[in-house]
């Protein structure tokens, strides 16, 4: 077969021929094989006319399709056969179904947002840090408390009926001379204001007894009860000392909910400060206590108890 295919070299061909001389039967068989030819039936052979016809048909299709896709058909005259073909091709033009709509246009749309430039953000952050630094000045920071580390807590109290002690103070002011002590966040900054005795009407005996029997209320000043002695020359009297710790009206959202705050002083712990608060607000109800995460730099070293008012009565010896 390799010989018939013509792929043998000269040496192989010579050896094959010498072999065939020795075997004449195989030589005759090889000759018959080499003379075999395939004959294409006339029925399936493409004539030149058919090829031309196919070529023409393809060209016609191409022409018609090109014409169909072209927008400009002016000046072109078509035979009836071409028109029929064009009509058939026109049928292949797809039409979009206008009923099919995207289900949710609004989800794709964007709104105009306020774009804050980077420099504004940086400035705002710097300003926030500056004001935080002002609020937490180094002298206010309780170093001993800082050393205790994880007890950096912020408390938010909403106290209902906090007006009760205030009302009591107003009531008692009308009965006896009152000495008012204002405490501005730090107990060391105590201002005393003596109200002249003559401005207040004398106390009724029963009311005096009632007030004298009341135990003094502890105040947040190093857990020291304010039972200061008045000078000898001052007449014996019941003194009311409303203490005003710095208020923060911006967080006062409800007339019956009075946010209170105070700073934690040296030697105080969060729990002891809470105890004090509970004592001074014994007639009130603590509505909410919120603990802020540890490590908040803004409140480090402070225990904010909100702002509150209370009256402290003390009796002269």
């Amino acid at each position, binding site marked *: 077969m390799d010989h018939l295919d013509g792929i043998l070299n000269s040496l192989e061909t010579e050896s094959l021929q010498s072999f065939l001389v020795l075997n004449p039967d195989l030589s005759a068989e090889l000759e018959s094989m080499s003379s075999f030819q395939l004959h294409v039936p006339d029925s399936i052979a493409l004539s030149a006319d058919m090829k031309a016809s196919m070529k023409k048909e393809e060209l016609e*299709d*191409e022409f018609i*399709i090109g014409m*169909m*896709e072209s927008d400009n058909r002016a000046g072109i005259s078509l035979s009836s056969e071409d028109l029929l073909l064009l009509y*058939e*091709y026109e*049928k*292949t*033009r*797809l*039409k*979009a*179904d206008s009923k*099919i*709509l*995207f*289900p*949710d*246009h609004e*989800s*794709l*749309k*964007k*709104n*105009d947002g306020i774009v804050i430039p980077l420099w504004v953000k940086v400035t705002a952050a710097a300003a926030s840090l500056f004001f935080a630094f002002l609020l937490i000045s180094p002298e206010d920071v309780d170093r001993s408390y800082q050393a205790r580390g994880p007890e950096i807590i912020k408390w938010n109290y909403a106290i209902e009926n906090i007006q009760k002690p205030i009302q009591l103070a107003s009531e008692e002011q009308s009965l006896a001379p009152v000495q008012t002590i204002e405490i501005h966040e730090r107990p060391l900054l105590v201002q005393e204001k003596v109200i002249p005795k003559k401005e207040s009407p004398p106390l009724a005996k029963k009311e005096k007894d009632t007030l004298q029997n009341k135990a003094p209320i502890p105040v947040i000043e190093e857990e020291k009860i304010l039972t200061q002695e008045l000078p000898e020359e001052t007449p014996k009297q019941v003194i009311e000392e409303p203490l005003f710790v710095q208020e923060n009206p911006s967080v006062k959202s409800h007339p019956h909910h009075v946010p209170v705050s105070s700073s934690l002083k040296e030697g105080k712990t969060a729990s002891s400060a809470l105890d004090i608060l509970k004592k001074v607000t014994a007639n009130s109800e603590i509505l909410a206590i919120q603990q802020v995460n540890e490590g908040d730099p803004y409140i480090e070293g402070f225990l904010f108890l909100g702002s509150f008012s209370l009256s402290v009565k003390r009796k002269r010896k």
Partner: protein
Amino acid sequence: MRPHIESGPVDTKSYNQCVDLYSDRVYRYILKNLKDADGAKDVVQDAYARLWEVHDTIDLEKSKSWLFTTAYRVMIDGIRKNSKQSPLTEKHAEPIHSTGYSDLQEILNEALDLLVPIQKQVVLLRDYEGYSYEEIGEITALNPSQVKVYLFRARKKLKDYLVSMENIIG
């Protein structure tokens, strides 16, 4: 008639205008290919999300073409990733003929599924959107001559299918 849109960068307003003008068209085109409403919706959303990412760098005039191109590529990527769906390079299986046809478009839609996918894309873009050979080439990453050849072959197949169906139906 194509909606007129001015040139210039795509801002929020013009982006929303693109949503109103083109989202239905892109959706129809993708839905025709995927035959899956949720999948088509995802592709359209993805295409618009990408448009928004680069909206300040794109000329508004090119936004439609950009959307179709992106949607086409997102669709192709999705099909490739999803092994359950047949890739676009494969020929679609012979559809089962329904017993009756309501109209020509129904037969034509069936014939459309017999086309090689790239031929189908070319026909859809040509007939649905009226894109030129050059525009179709930009979307499908073909040159205009290839688009012309694919379109020619697709038309011929569609025509032959319609003729054969007309002969069957009588």
